[in-house]
């Protein structure tokens, strides 16, 4: 048979370019693959066992060789065997899978945070340092990266197969995922939850850089304004500081140092202040009234974009004293009251 050399070359190239096993590019990948191979082995063993029984009996007891069937009732011993052994194996899978799950979904405390906003049909990545990316994400090797993700519209799912991580990106609530990349290179980002027309176009690339290259990249690609700085402007422009001024007589609770603390609400419940709580308290304030304050805060539902909320959250995170708030307050009210504070130098 004669195959044209052009076709042959095409075939060789085509086969070489095709993948059979994903790259292991994160610290999690080897753990996932280990469980995968364990599961593969028990599947193949199970299949061979059932196959051997079926074919073995079919040959041994086919009608030509074994014309009269011998009726057997069953056997409690055998029933127990094939109940207990599969059960034990499945329980091993359960424990192993659970350990892996907790490993993948429990971010280390020293992880650097990047925000991801999903929308039809793109991924926006926002670094606290003010780098904004679309359908791309730059991360360093050797450092855990936590993604705090939210969707602006429908369910999406952020998946990086070569890292073996994936998490649903949900409208109205933050979800998180983390990874530590090990190999510099570029890897696919897929949206794996069906999200409408361009679902298969909602893809991107993670670029993993060495720490030095990453440092260079952050310096070269910052927008000049960190997320917290954007948040501060938003905070002032929406007049948040009118109530959250931090002074003793303020109508709203003090925000300095609130992030990470435990708050007692009017209904008596205790909450941990994290990103999700802050976002929710801005959008549905009436459900999150700090004890001792009146429910006077209006809802900001529909007035702040998810990006704006991220900026505000980042800003509140960085507030450790009320100095900035008061400074903003003073500036914004400077038309009415001339600043007399000694030590403050106005240009």
């Amino acid at each position, binding site marked *: 048979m004669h195959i044209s050399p052009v076709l042959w070359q095409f075939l060789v190239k085509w086969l070489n370019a095709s993948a059979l096993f994903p790259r292991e590019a994160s610290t999690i990948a080897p753990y996932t693959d280990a469980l*995968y191979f364990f599961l593969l082995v028990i599947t193949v063993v199970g299949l061979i066992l059932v196959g051997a029984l079926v074919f073995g009996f079919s040959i041994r*007891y086919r009608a030509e060789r074994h014309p009269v069937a011998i009726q057997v009732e069953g056997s409690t011993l*055998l029933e127990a065997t094939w109940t207990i052994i599969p059960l034990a194996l499945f329980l091993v899978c359960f424990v192993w899978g659970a350990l892996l799950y907790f490993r993948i979904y429990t971010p280390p405390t020293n992880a650097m945070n990047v925000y991801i906003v999903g929308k039809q049909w793109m991924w926006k990545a926002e670094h606290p340092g003010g780098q904004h990316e679309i359908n791309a994400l730059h991360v360093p090797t050797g450092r855990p990266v936590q993604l705090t993700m939210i969707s602006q519209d*429908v369910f999406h799912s952020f998946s990086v197969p070569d890292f*073996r991580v994936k998490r649903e990106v949900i409208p109205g609530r933050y979800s998180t995922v983390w990874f530590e990349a090990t190999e510099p290179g570029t890897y696919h980002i897929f949206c794996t939850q069906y*999200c409408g027309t361009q679902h298969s176009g909602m893809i991107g690339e993670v670029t993993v850089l060495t720490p030095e290259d990453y440092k260079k990249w952050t310096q070269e690609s910052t927008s000049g304004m960190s997320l917290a700085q954007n948040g501060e402007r938003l905070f002032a422009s929406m007049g948040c500081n009118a109530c959250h001024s931090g002074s003793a007589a303020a109508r709203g609770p003090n925000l300095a140092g609130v992030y990470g603390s435990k708050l007692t609400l009017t209904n008596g419940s205790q909450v941990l202040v994290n990103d999700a709580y802050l976002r929710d308290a801005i959008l549905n304030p009436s459900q999150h009234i700090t004890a001792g304050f009146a429910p006077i805060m209006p809802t900001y539902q529909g007035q702040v974009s998810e990006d704006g909320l991220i900026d505000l959250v980042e800003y509140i995170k960085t507030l450790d004293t009320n100095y900035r708030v008061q400074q903003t307050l003073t500036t914004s009210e400077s038309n009415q009251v001339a600043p007399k504070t000694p030590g403050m130098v106005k240009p």
Partner: protein
Amino acid sequence: MSTTTTTIVNLPDQRTATLPKRHYLNNEDGLLSWLFTGDHKRIAILYLISITFFFFIGGAFAGLIRLELLTPQPDLMASDTYNKMFSMHGIVMVFLFLVPSVPATLGNFLIPIMLGAKDLAFPKINLLSWYLYVAGGLFTLAALVLGGVDTGWTFTTPLSTHYLNTNVVTAATGIFIAGFASIFTGLNFIVTIHRMRAPGMTWFRMPLFVWANYAASILMVLGTPVVAISLVLVALERTVGIGVFDPTKGGDPLLFQHLFWFYSHPAVYIMILPGMGVISEVISTFSRKRVFGYTAVAFSSVAIALFGFFVWEHHMFIMGVSNYSALVFSLLTMLVAVPSAIKIFNWAFTLQKGSITFETPMIYAFAFMGLFVIGGMTGVFLGALGMDIHLTETYFIVAHFHYVMVGGMLMAFLAGIHFWWPKMTGRMYPESFSKLSAVTSFIGFNLTFMPQFILGYLGMPRRYHVYPPEFQVLNVLSTAGATVLGVGFLLPLLYLGWSLKYGAIAGDNPWQATGLEWQIQSPPITENFTEIPIVDHEAYDYDWLAHKTEQEVTTVG
């Protein structure tokens, strides 16, 4: 009829066997006699025709999907069209083929006969359920003709409620109505099995096919209302914006997932359990041996139905559910895998010491066992929490549920259709053609879906119209397999149609099987039995059958 002292299969002499003069097919004539029939056997035939119609519609969508995926670029159709293709494929196959497949056709036909009853408990409700099914089907077809629907069969909110401009409400109405068909069928089965067993037919003398359908009926009656509710909520959210699932109105989009999967996971067992019932009958008959561990197989059906209700959250492990609830659901998922393993091993040991022949239903049953082991074990992959993170929403899951639904259920359905074809029509299917089609389907099936496991581990997401070029080789293999599979599914349509007129006359009991349905004429009379049978033996009692045949021979002389 000379060698009836042994239990070797013995086709009646084809020259002397004749079709009975009166049977349920020719008892009354005319279209109206079919459309107003209360006869469970005729309703089963109506169902068989309608689900076959929808199967080939759903199959056409599958063919177009595979054709588009031959190349990484979009070339055959636009993204919106592609999205409609997989949505309609899923909706038609799940709600209009798989859910009613075995229960509404074989179950309808056989359950009353297997129990020794004249009909189901509520013949008119049985007919109503077929009309509801057809109405549901028409709504779905209307959604298709009016421009399709592109929600995916899962109707994920808020995509389905706020972001799509297609015929979501029409399709949801279709499923809502078809759901009642399934509830009524389930109700009918439960009442019939409880109340209408012939004298002597105790629970543990019932064929395992009846047990499996009983378990599936419980799931239908308890589960289907929940999907109906969730679809009504989707429709209300779309039309009047009630905000149950809309986060900006204080709703919870995850609530929809909980409601939907609360039905749609048990629905998987609605689909597979009756298929398992078929396999029990077929394996026993062609090994001429009582099913090994009858009680274990019967109770494993009930256990699957019971556990099946408490595993739905395993569809949501990556959706930000509490880690601890994920633990519980993963554990329960592992438990539900055990009864399936029990069944597989019991079937394998039924063969031991049997006297095995390899007619087409048996070939399909063997295919079922192999494919179901793969389908079931890959379910364990997905039930293991950490593994699920990487595998879910990829082609791995697509391959997994096709192994269970097509490799499992469809193979079981075809096994059953071939097995009971002589009883339903009075004629044999052509053996060599049907063996060819069984082998073709098996090969085509594996070629289609095995590459998808690899694609899934590589990370190729499901429902992708355009994909990275490095996935092409495996996709080409899969499409090639789908072509073979298509041939394997078309063949039965042709030769079974042929056999209606030209097939050999089957006689009452061509397989020398023990079920009550094989002790009456083929095709049966409208009332099934000339006199109510009195059951004095266990199911699959081949000695009883041999004894009975021997007596008949001596009486006749």
